[in-house]
């Protein structure tokens, strides 16, 4: 048991921080407050990821045969921490690297690998994901967007909702039902759908989270070439299961929370509240949730580094991450004071970033269900 970073890993983090200091523009903090879906951040991520790719860091965790460096999961975690800490300048491209690319490596045809992996590893392509539907949220297997085979195409009809990162996305990792008679997990198929296909319409759903955060995708007999299918027809559920297990704790969101909490504490001290026992207590309790989330995420990385199969430790880490974001965002409004109500204030920006933590990428309830069944072995009945 050892809780210290190796010298190599510590050096890597230092290099990464120096790179970020040099590459992020002086107004980056301000830009990043518009949120990951904004025009400005989507555009920025392209140039930024290309630079990250040239340093060999973008897909360092990928196998060498696909242009990676076989970096350890710990390296991958450091990269994710440093990126989240600074407001995730990779934008949506973290998804490409974390799970879309690996899913293509595992299930893709040679042509798909050639088309997509090279572009992802160069950092010049944006993806979105089409999972949720109006009637299929936590209950993802209830999805009904239909894809009917017609010659060399699938004809897709239906809609997806709550899609983020549509801004500038060229491809969608799309879940469809190819067998209309199928139920639940059977008959689902993954399409790597080009977003410029005719019959795909995008509509933003305005929200309080931020600019272009949510979208609805409408498919009106959109023709998606059949060679865009990832893996066998009807076995998309397994593809998604693999992809999301691979993702595990992909986004080290607590790193942002930690930085924000430091800023909140500094602000509180500047307001003369350093000696206020109630303020000290709240900050101390929040800090503990941040550090618990960090260690529980590390536990998942540790298991992955050992090559173990995914466990419910991932769900434990996710719930802990949500507790941490909730605690810090509460304090962001409370201790920054009314100034944090102004759009673009650091407190406002963090509050918006954190408010979806318990819902995005699997709700807290689903994570608690999985902890109960897989870790605590409580009966379903």
């Amino acid at each position, binding site marked *: *048991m*050892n*809780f*210290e*970073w*190796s010298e190599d*890993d510590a050096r890597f983090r230092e290099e990464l921080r120096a790179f970020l200091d040099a590459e992020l523009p002086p107004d980056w903090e301000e830009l990043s407050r518009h949120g990951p879906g904004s025009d400005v951040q989507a555009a920025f991520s392209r140039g930024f990821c290309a630079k990250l790719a040239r340093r060999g860091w973008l897909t360092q965790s990928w196998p060498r045969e696909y242009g990676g460096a076989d970096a350890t999961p*710990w390296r991958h975690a450091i990269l994710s921490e440093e990126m989240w800490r600074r407001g995730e300048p990779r934008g949506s491209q973290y998804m490409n690297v974390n799970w879309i690319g690996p899913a293509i490596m595992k299930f893709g045809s040679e042509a798909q690998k050639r088309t997509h992996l090279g572009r992802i590893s160069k950092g010049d392509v944006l993806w979105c994901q089409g999972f949720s539907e109006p009637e299929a949220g936590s209950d993802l297997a209830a999805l009904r967007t239909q894809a009917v085979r017609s010659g060399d195409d699938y004809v897709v009809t239906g809609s997806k909702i709550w899609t983020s990162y549509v801004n500038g996305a060229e491809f969608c990792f799309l879940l469809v039902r190819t067998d209309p008679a199928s139920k639940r997990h059977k008959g689902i198929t993954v399409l790597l759908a080009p977003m410029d296909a005719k019959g795909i319409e995008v509509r933003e759903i305005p929200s309080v989270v931020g600019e272009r955060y949510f979208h609805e995708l409408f498919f009106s007999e959109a023709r998606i070439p059949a060679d865009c299918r990832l893996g066998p027809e009807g076995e998309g559920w397994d593809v998604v299961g693999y992809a999301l297990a691979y993702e595990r704790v992909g986004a080290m969101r607590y790193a942002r929370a930690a930085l924000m909490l*430091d800023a909140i*504490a*500094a602000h*509180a*001290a500047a307001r003369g509240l*350093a*000696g206020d*026992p109630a*303020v*000290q*207590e*709240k*900050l*101390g*309790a929040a*800090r*503990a*949730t941040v*550090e*618990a*989330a960090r*260690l*529980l995420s*590390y*536990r998942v*990385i*540790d*298991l992955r580094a*050992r090559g173990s199969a995914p466990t419910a*430790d991932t769900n*434990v880490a996710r*719930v*802990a991450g949500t*507790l941490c974001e909730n605690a810090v965002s509460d304090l962001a409004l409370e201790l920054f004071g009314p100034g944090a109500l102004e759009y673009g204030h650091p407190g406002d920006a963090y509050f918006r970033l954190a408010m979806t933590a318990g819902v995005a990428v699997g709700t807290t*309830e689903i*994570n*608690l*269900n999985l*902890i*109960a*069944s897989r*870790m*605590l*072995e*409580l*009966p*379903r*009945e």
Partner: protein
Amino acid sequence: MDFEFSDDQRAILDAAEALLAQHAGPARAAEKGAAGEYDYELHAALASAGFSEVALGPGTGFLEATLLCRAVARAGGSVAYGAGALVAPAVAGRALPGPVALARADDAAPIRFGADAKTLLLDAGDEARVVRLEPGAAARVRTNFLWPMGRVAVAPGASTSLGPGSGARMRRWWRVALAAELVGCMESALAITLDYVKRRRQFGRAIGSFQAVQHRLALATVMLEGSRWLTYEAAALGAPDESAALAAAHASDAAQLVFRETHQLTGAMGYTREHPLHVFSMRLAALRHEMGGVAAQRREVARARWALA
């Protein structure tokens, strides 16, 4: 980074758990706890097997002592393992005659193991002080919290200083020991409750199959797991100020949730002396008030992290 026990650590823990299975356990803890008695037999068994001296090696250290502290608490040991085998060697650099009790110099409240301690370790601010207790120096205190407790009267001038800075060192390791005991007690309280909700049937089904029950136990598990890793990290890094305070603060928060939920979910049965939950739940309730309680632990985090004071 490595989150697994080494083979040596595993072997030590296995041996300790075998000993604890023989000399400790909830039934014995319930009996000792009800009578307010110190478990001298377990104390002697741990000492003669060498478990009381792992903190100062060779080949073992404070992390191993912390792991054992958790194991003793989880087994319901009615002994001052954390104080004697972890805090005392960390502060004094050597073992002190046990049982050892820990106290704050300005606090006359009853303390755990106060009635049985041979040595009192005092947090006197900048320095820690050692007091050799004569028989009769302490009065046993009746308590419902399952720890043997006593009120100790220390004559002024009867103590020896362990040097400048030893007070902070004592508080840091006291927090780690406390966190390890909280984690051990929480593990047992939750395990007992899980077992209960899987067996107990109402409305024709195990109550553990209700989502309302599952979510609460799952959330308690999240808090426990976070406390466990914070405790291990603090111990492995040598109890840095912030790390030690984080472990104690988070484990104290978790303990409150675990106390409430385990009692809620075991119903009336959980309050009885025949059911083992009370040993761990009542001990948890007491532990989270040690050292000034959860508020003080949280404030220590703020002081250590941001120098807020």
